[in-house]
């Protein structure tokens, strides 16, 4: 089987080295670019399966690189950045990033995220049923099962869960979810989201206080993980 290819765009040589070793020892083919221009060029040349992008690049602002890549590049883009400001992260997600990791990050976490993005991208977008060992959601029949037992969800709860599940592994911002489910005029009504997420967790998580599927991205949004 062909190795999956990852392009790392980062100006810090230590980070490039670290990622090269970590990723290649985990069976990925790694390409390295040290600035934005080189990154965009390599992305076009190699068509990698995933791009890791640093936001603080010497030549072009990382957000701009992201926007330019997203004009034609469809595979997952993960942001790696030392900037932890919520507004910066939300902006990157709005610009089309699938995920973000703040430096310093743990290697295990990084690999888990990479694998989840690779897995999801192979899946066909039109697949109507999303399943794992103890969870399934049928997007057409609108049926949710936990441990093979059907769970009764309200219409809004189902819509929320469906949009999360369709974007497994991807961080969805509060604003995005509110707009998608309740409409544009609700984009700052976060209380809707908080209440429905809490309800949904009570119905599908083993322990709503320690969620394993609907994860909180502090101050930013939510991410769905198939367990």
């Amino acid at each position, binding site marked *: 089987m062909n190795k999956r290819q990852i392009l790392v765009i980062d100006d810090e040589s230590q980070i490039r080295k670290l990622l090269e070793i970590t990723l290649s020892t985990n069976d990925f083919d790694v390409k390295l670019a040290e600035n934005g221009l080189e990154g965009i060029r390599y992305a076009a040349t190699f068509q990698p399966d995933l791009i890791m992008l640093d936001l603080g690049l010497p030549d072009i602002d990382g957000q701009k690189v992201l926007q330019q890549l997203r004009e034609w590049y469809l595979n997952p883009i993960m942001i790696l950045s030392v900037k932890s400001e*919520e507004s910066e992260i939300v902006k990157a997600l709005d610009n089309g990033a699938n995920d973000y990791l703040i430096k310093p990050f743990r290697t295990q976490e990084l690999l888990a995220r990479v694998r989840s993005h690779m897995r999801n991208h192979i899946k066909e977008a039109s697949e109507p049923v999303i399943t794992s060992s103890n969870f399934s959601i049928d997007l057409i029949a609108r049926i949710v099962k936990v441990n093979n037992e059907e769970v009764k969800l309200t219409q809004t709860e189902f819509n929320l869960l469906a949009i999360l599940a369709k974007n497994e592994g991807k961080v969805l911002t509060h604003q995005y979810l509110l707009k998608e489910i309740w409409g544009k005029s609700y984009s700052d009504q976060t*209380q*809707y989201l*908080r*209440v429905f997420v809490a309800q949904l967790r009570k119905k599908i998580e083993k322990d709503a*206080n*320690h969620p394993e599927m609907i994860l909180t991205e*502090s101050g930013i949004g939510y991410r769905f993980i198939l367990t």
Partner: protein
Amino acid sequence: MFSRTSNPNNQYIFSIILVVLISLVCFAFKDIIGYKVIAFILLVTVSFVAMFYRIVPTLLAAVLSALIWNFFFIKPYYTFHIGNTEDKFMFFMYFVIALINAVLTFKIRQIERIANEKESKLQSIKLYNTLLDSLSHELKTPIAAIIGSTDALQSNAIMTENQKEKLLEEISIASLRLNNQVENLLNMSRLESGVIVAKMDWVDVNEIVYEVIRALKIKSYTQKIVVTATENLPLFKLDYGLTEHVIYNLLNNAIIYTPEKSTITINLSYSENTLQIIILDEGNGFPEDEIAFVFDKFYRLKNSRPGGSGLGLSIVKGFVEAQNGTVTLENRVEGGAKFIIKIKTEVSKFNPTENE
């Protein structure tokens, strides 16, 4: 009236009033006390003004009193003309003494002020050095551990797998500690530069608490963290990130400083529009005479264990206050510390799910 901070314009008015008042009193008794004694009384008045006022009002008092003395008290009266040579000489001397008086007093005060400034500067340098000492210790210890361990691993010394593992573990602990310190320093400087503006939005405080507990898992602590909350705790308008940090710092402290396997309790409740977060532990509590200082920047308890930066609690205070809240600390009667956070904010009991 004589406060040094008084309005400069008032200083002119008051020094004129004072000189005129004293002169009037002297004028009433001029037949009894004689004009030479009056000269001394007026000089004392000028000195008095010099003690409290700035140089220009003092000079004004000096000139005015000299003129008054000449006009009303030296023969011939009610004219600036002076009859005999001795009086002319005395008037000249009066004038000089009054001016010297004013200038000297002013200079003394100036020197005094410079000395004061120097001393407070020295004190702040001393304080700064203590802070720098503790800070460089906290930063350099983990760096030393990392450099030392990597050197050992890179050397050709023969090591068992177990020993290698231990060195790697050291590096890992040290880098986490370093990361924590840097995070604290960055937060402190963000707080001090005033760039932190609370972004108040609806949050589920329960969710924040459990997120923090999840994040603390890598610390592999042995204490038991118990969450107790009012049933159906409503949503509150808070800054998610700041509140998360506050709870993290307090729980992290409790984990570091309380006995193994003891219980840490976090209680969430509210009344009307105030959220109350209480964190209780079963440690030794804080020395009563130091409680007032624990939220101060860089303050370390006198006999505290190494490992902290002295910033954690001051960040807690800063982040709570950025949300218009208060944080207080007291010792529990049954032993241990009790942190109480109160944030007055909007509360939402609304439940959109009921309509479905």
